[in-house]
């Protein structure tokens, strides 16, 4: 199974295996990883699963869709490499993915 590593704001790392087809948000929720709230349950409605994707993974994770981009535009700590974890679907190609979490999701 492909692996993802979540890095908390304080540097703590959580490596998990995540079934292809599930979202990076679901991986965090199912493994109780702090820092991803996912208020809306994956509907791209709340921007509480904001993560930063390192440069080297950006090509593989793709760029945000229109709805996602407009939500991210107003997330407090948004960067060019911001994504909503509910919109990144796990696949074999993403095996080894690392995502970093912001200090807070509000």
């Amino acid at each position, binding site marked *: 199974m492909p692996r993802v590593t979540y890095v908390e704001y304080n540097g703590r790392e959580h490596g998990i295996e995540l079934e292809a087809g599930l979202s990076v948000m679901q991986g965090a929720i*199912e493994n*109780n990883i702090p820092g991803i709230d996912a208020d809306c349950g994956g509907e791209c409605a709340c921007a509480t699963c904001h993560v930063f994707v390192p440069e080297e993974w950006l090509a593989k994770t793709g760029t945000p869709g229109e709805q996602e981009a407009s*939500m991210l*535009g*107003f*997330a407090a700590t948004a960067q060019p490499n911001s994504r909503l974890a509910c919109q990144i679907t796990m696949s074999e190609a993403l095996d080894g993915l690392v995502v970093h979490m912001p200090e807070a999701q509000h």
Partner: protein
Amino acid sequence: MDPAEPGLVIIGAGHAGGAAAAFLRQYGWKGGITLLGEEPGLPYQRPPLSKAWLKGEATAESLLLRPARFYAQYAIETRLGTTAVAIDRAAQVVRLGDGTALPYARLILATGAAPRRLGLAGEAFANVLTLRHAADADALARVLGPGRRLAIIGAGYIGLEVAASARALGGAAVVIEREARVLARVAGLALSGFLAAQHRARGVEILTGAGVEAIEGRDGLATGLLLQDGRRLGCDAVLVGVGAAPNEAMALAAGLDAGGGVAVDLAARTSDPLIYAIGDCTRRPLPLYGREVRLESVPNAIEQAKQAAADICGRPPPLPEVPWFWSDQYELRLQMAGLAFDPAEAVLRGDPDSASFAVFHLDAAQRVLAVEAVNAPADFMAGRVMVAKQMQVAPAALRDPAQSLKDLCA
């Protein structure tokens, strides 16, 4: 974790209770956690019940808040199909429906709310339904479909979402609302008008300013409604969607400060230092508006779950939040942030005819109180920031499509 030591007990395995158990483990609670739930299944998402689930677009598994293995992995004992009947504060035990008692070191009430009933003649017919639980949604799904007409009493979010789902499934829907407009309690005039028009354009019949006198039927099944003005409407089933009342009887009986919701502070503490309450069953302060409110939303359930878990684990409380809510009807994504208490002005940004617009509600000092956005996620996000900062914004700037909201928020 000593199994003989009383642990933390959560009454209600819904959105708030499930979230609290997870946050407690995240925040380092080492004692036992017992999650008591009246429903037969593990905690699940309710929002899809009126939307994707009704239309057969979700599975029981996709509805679950966390997968089944989660609870064993994090040592959260689930006792499902189990009803708590009383809290004995002196003995520090919860009394269960089967006559046994469960001791607690800390207790969290997360009992949610129950659909209001109207007390009408005919309300007990088998096809007069309400929608709160997964089982209710299954019963509702069975009466929807081509050739079926659903009468919906109450034009709140749940009623309108179900009307949209009924149409999507090829059936007919008629909505009867006592107030002069749909969503009268929860939306501004512009949004109400827009949504009513959208539903009508898609074949939903909406009767406002209309009271229901009785539900008529025979052989144990409703066949129609008699309105107060004497009109009769035929239907194959009825959904009563007239709001929900907090499940607070146990809290009241135990002498906790309650009534219109269990009273809690910003750490979700009740009037008993060992007892917390979270989610739809509570009445809580909202410092942003200097008021006490009862919120019924997933974000609020999660927020209060965090507040309780943080307090119990000796962590600082979460930052104050802006309440928000979403709803999906047809291809319309509604996102609302803030609450429009005593609004002085409603400012429209965008064009409702394009089905992408937002309404900003300002107070007399032009502070942004709330935003309602339709297919306008950026306006929603901007509004949320403005509400949080209690920003004063000139209506002309909000109205101007050339004015970047990002610049206004900066």
